[in-house]
């Protein structure tokens, strides 16, 4: 595909200058799920220029990450040739594509012959385009015929997805356009720091406030988002579920339940109501640390609102009871009669760039395209038909991400792993252990534009195209399918992920079915998703261009797409939303004398995920500094730690090293680390891989640590 002239979207470029001559490519940011619209302008001899583009989500805004995203295209350590580890030297050495792909295919064949099909695994990512996520799932099921596939979205969206599915019969992060947030009289944000993780989204919150709306923020830290709140509920990490039960308790006992809605549109309320009876605000206070009076105030504020929204994010979800926590907040929303009412509802704020689409099209262990279930015979038959294979050749559901990674190189576990669009050596919980497991593989193959920390462990590294070098679609946090467009050609020597999968499949004896053209793949994805929950059948590249994206489900080309869901009924069998009876339970690892401080993790504004991209942008590194551990001055005082001092953060799993940053915006019993840094600064060396039994989500958001001074 020729780069450049793929759509001149700025008929009136700013200033009407010479830029008018340059091709301007309308695309979206490479980072988070807001997928800010941007225009890339390419002029020979100049760096690619980035500008924000008017769009319903970012409304022209970009954060520093977006503004500097084009720096990724010229990062000096870009990989442009495959690397194969030399058995003699132990070093990664340049190789030809044919040699590299031959080596990978031969390794896979050998391992599958000896240990069975499931001995080869695939690990994908929530940043991959829909086309890649789809092709990767198909590659696993058709070319490898392995059940061992999952992806890093398991660390991101799995809990909210599970809770959304069991309540509504469907999981679309926001079942309404983001701009609807401004219509909510009261907004409850749980474990979300939008101001840092998705800055342009704050424009909608500003609109909401301008309309007189109120904001309630639940967070162990007084974040930049919480500063905007009418009420900030500074919960103890891992106790959001108890708080939700307390809010519901107040709503119920104060006679504020929308009984007509509950009767007409839901089922299962009675058990939930009785569960909430055990969570009076004073009990909630003791568990959460949130004063009972604040629990009541927040509940009254929500219940008195004409329109209200409950939005959860990773703070509530990345817990070993993440799905139940989200269910508890959905229960609250249902009791208040919010979901399916304009200007109201429940939503989850998706994290990764294609965190929504990435969880719909088959790179999840238990899933087929269209958000179909892999263990559903009808779904297997439909998708097998599209793929031209017999349904019984499709493997059954495999293990969730952490279980898959923790089993690498073990008896009965995966012995060869293909990693695409992910950096689990930094992003997985108990990362030190996962690094060992990755190293124990017979064959680790990593597709990445850069030598990520995971690539450094690989036997074969395949240099692939990135973001502005290839076409494809993503599905943003609203379920809006968007187009990413190539602005420049990949550097010589680089191939796209789709080309890599096609090349490998052919070598594995499947010469057809893995085209390199994204639009062709998307056409097949449409057919595979047709009739599924996430139905893309009516979405075309042209329609996306014409209408600021298309929101699924969109079952045919005449269908306008679905901006607002659940207005009439829910996607359950009987059309009713289901209350799910959930109870609070303690964190997997609570404080004790040896580990007396909670550690919670998250992002900072100028970095993204494992940092594999953003650590290669000098301006972002300069802005973020390096690994920091935030702690309260009172805690620092007890430990005799001063600002800037390097400390060790130690848990039962390992230790990370970071500079102390003292701030009174955090609870006195809690420390915070961002998870963007590699090596000794990796927060995930410390985190707890205790899994949510419902969703497989690890407990990233809370574990017990101690902080130690580093001897000088």
């Amino acid at each position, binding site marked *: 595909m020729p780069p450049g002239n793929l759509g001149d979207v700025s008929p009136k470029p*700013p200033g009407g200058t010479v830029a008018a001559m340059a091709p301007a490519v309308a695309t979206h940011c490479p980072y988070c799920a807001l997928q800010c619209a941007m225009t890339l302008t390419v002029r020979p001899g100049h760096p690619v220029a980035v500008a*924000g583009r008017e769009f319903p989500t970012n409304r*022209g*805004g*970009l*954060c*520093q990450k977006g*503004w500097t995203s084009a720096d990724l295209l010229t990062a000096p350590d870009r990989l442009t040739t495959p690397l194969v580890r030399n058995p003699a030297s132990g070093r990664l050495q340049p190789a030809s594509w044919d040699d590299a792909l031959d080596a990978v295919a031969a390794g896979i064949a050998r391992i599958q012959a000896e240990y069975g099909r499931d001995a080869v695994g695939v690990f994908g990512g929530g940043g991959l385009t829909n086309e890649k996520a789809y092709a990767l799932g198909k590659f696993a099921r058709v070319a490898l015929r392995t059940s061992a596939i999952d992806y890093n979205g398991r660390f991101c969206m799995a809990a909210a997805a599970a809770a959304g599915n069991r309540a509504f019969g469907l999981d679309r992060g926001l079942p309404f356009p983001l701009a609807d947030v401004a219509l909510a009289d009261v907004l409850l944000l749980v474990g979300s720091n939008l*101001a*840092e993780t998705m*800055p*342009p*989204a*704050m*424009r909608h919150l*500003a609109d909401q406030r301008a309309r007189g709306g109120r904001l309630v923020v639940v967070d162990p830290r*007084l974040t*930049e988002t919480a*500063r905007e709140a009418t009420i900030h509920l*500074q919960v*103890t990490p891992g106790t959001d579920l108890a708080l939700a039960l307390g809010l519901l308790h107040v709503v*119920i*006992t*104060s*006679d504020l339940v929308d009984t007509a809605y509950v009767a007409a549109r839901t089922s299962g309320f009675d*058990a939930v*109501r*009785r*569960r909430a*009876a*055990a969570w*009076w605000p*004073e*009990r909630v*206070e*003791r568990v*959460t*640390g*949130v*004063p*009972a*009076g604040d629990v009541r105030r927040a509940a009254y504020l929500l219940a008195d609102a004409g329109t209200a929204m409950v939005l959860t994010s990773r703070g509530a979800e990345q817990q070993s009871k993440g799905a139940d926590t989200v269910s508890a907040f959905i229960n609250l929303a249902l009791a208040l009669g919010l979901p399916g009412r304009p200007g109201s509802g429940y939503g989850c704020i998706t994290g990764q760039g294609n965190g929504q689409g990435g969880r719909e099209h088959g790179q999840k262990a238990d899933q087929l395209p269209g958000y179909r279930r892999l263990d559903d015979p009808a779904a297997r038959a439909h998708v097998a038909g599209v793929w031209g294979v017999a349904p019984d050749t499709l493997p059954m559901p495999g293990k969730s991400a952490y279980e898959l990674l923790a089993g690498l190189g073990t008896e009965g576990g995966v012995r060869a792993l293909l990693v695409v669009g992910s950096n689990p050596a930094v992003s997985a919980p108990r990362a030190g252990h996962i690094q060992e497991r990755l190293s124990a593989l017979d064959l680790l193959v990593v597709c990445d534009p850069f030598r990520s920390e995971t690539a450094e462990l690989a036997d074969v590294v395949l240099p692939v195209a990135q973001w502005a070098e290839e076409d494809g679609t993503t599905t943003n946090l609203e379920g809006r399918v968007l187009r990413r467009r190539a602005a420049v050609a990949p550097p010589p020597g680089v191939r796209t992920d789709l080309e890599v999968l096609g090349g490998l499949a052919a070598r594995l004896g499947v010469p057809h079915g893995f085209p390199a053209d994204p639009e062709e793949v998307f056409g097949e994805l449409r057919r595979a998703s047709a009739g599924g929950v996430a139905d893309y059948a009516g979405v075309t590249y042209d329609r996306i261009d014409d209408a600021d994206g298309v929101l699924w489900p969109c079952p045919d080309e005449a269908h306008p797409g679905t901006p607002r869901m659940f207005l009439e009924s829910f996607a359950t069998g009987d059309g009713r939303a289901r209350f799910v*009876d959930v*109870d609070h339970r303690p964190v997997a690892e609570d*404080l004790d004398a040896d580990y*007396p401080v909670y550690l919670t993790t998250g992002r900072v*504004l*100028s970095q993204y995920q494992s940092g594999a991209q953003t650590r290669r942008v000098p*301006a972002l590194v300069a*802005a973020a500094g390096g690994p920091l551990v935030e702690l309260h001055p*009172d805690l620092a*005082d*007890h430990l005799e730690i001063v600002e800037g001092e390097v400390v060790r953060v130690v848990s039962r799993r390992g230790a990370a090293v970071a500079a102390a940053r003292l*701030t*009174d*915006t955090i609870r*006195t*019993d809690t420390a915070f680390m961002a998870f963007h840094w590699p090596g000794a600064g990796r927060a995930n060396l410390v985190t707890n891989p205790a899994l949510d039994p419902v969703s497989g989500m690890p407990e990233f958001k809370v574990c017990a640590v101690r902080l130690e001074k580093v001897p000088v």
Partner: protein
Amino acid sequence: MSTVDPRVAAAAAMISQRPRIVIVGNGMAGSRLVEEIRSRDPHRMLHITAFGAENHGAYNRVLLSEVLAGRHHPDDIRLAGPGSDDGQVDVRLGVPVVAVDRARREVRAADGSVTPYDVLVLATGSQARIPPLDGLADGSGALLPGGFVFRTLDDCREILAAAAGAHRAVVLGGGLLGLEAARGLAGQGLDVVVVHQFGHLMERQLDPMAGRVLAHTLRVQGVQVRLGAASTAVVRDATGRFGGIRLDDGSCVLADLLVVACGVVPEVTLARAAGLSVDRGVVVDDVLRSVSDPRVFALGECAQHSGQVYGLVAPAWEQATVVAAHITGSDPGARYAGSRTVTRLRAVGVDLAAMGETTLGDDDAAEVVQFADPTRGTYAKMVIRDERLVGAILVGEMSTVGTVTQLFDRGAPVPADRTSLLFGPRRGGQVTTSVAAPGQMPSHATLCRCNGVTKGAIQECVLAGARTVEAVAQATRATTGCGGCRDVVEGIIEWVAAADPDTAPAVPA
């Protein structure tokens, strides 16, 4: 899941011989134990029979004062429990157990039924203590007309029925329960007098100063308080109708409704008759097992552990997790190590928390930090030993209650700045973008966080000629992220422009 889990199949095969758990008492402790067992027994290996003396399914007794106040509907305080179609748990409501035969391992109930057990759990709770006032109770201990205890949902309903025709209530006892009842009755529009025999309210939890602040607050809420007042007799008119309380100074408190809230006594009749070791409560070890019989457990207000009998729900629920762990075998190492108790008064317009040691001897070396503003109903007291919070009282101002409770519960060190425990932290954090006047902000202050732009950079840009937000945005990217700093950038433009009306850059001469 379409296939049958083999463990489920095995469990089904064993159903006829599965171990039988009998729980006597379906109150907060007993019903909680049922839930805890069920959550640890997913394959339903155990069969449970739970006897409840009351006709109601389990409900949240803590919230009875809210029902009395008319704030909660009784339906809203029903607790989770098994349905009538539950195959594992047989709940028998309104069926008191009358005897335990430990030799035959069976219990006999008031309906004549005999139920065998492999494990017996006593969760019989407690009874209201009836003080020895003339004319209060009959020979059997039952209250005479006009007097009520406040213990069960039925008690609550009876009081409400009586309150409907009453004008003035007297509450005997100024402890937690008495005050919650008093506030509830005041909420029903009655004049209420609390008669308390000690020198200050809630004397078991509060120091005298806190008691005084609390009494003041209650008076403002319409509840009168008579302290140091020992009552001697019930006053009745010629027809025997209740008319008030006579005190030991000879005076009378006239009323047409009496609520007795003089504490509770553990209900140990069954245990004692069964020959179990009973002191104040059923004596249990660290797994809540009777010291007399390994097949018998006791928990909640009828149990005595390490000399302690707890009258609050939190300890009972902690105990339930330990008992369930042992009955199901899910955690044979589970031990009960006693509970730290936090008392929270629930009453409209009155907010109070008390925990641990709150009253010290004169020569006690503990560090005490306190603040009192009785006129506004505020009092806070922290008792600190070895940098640990060992006791606290908060009345009125509750912003730190979460922090204080958690410090007490965990025995974590207190902050060097003790005032933060009384008033909450004085937070600075980072410079916020919307308050300071442009001239007061330091030049290095970040105004646009999304793009890391400082005041200095914006100022320079304006001085260089950018006189609109759009022009500043073009040059610095400020305002292009969340847009929240737009007002501040406008302010800087105005500020610079005012000082430098010309668009020419201001270069020092």
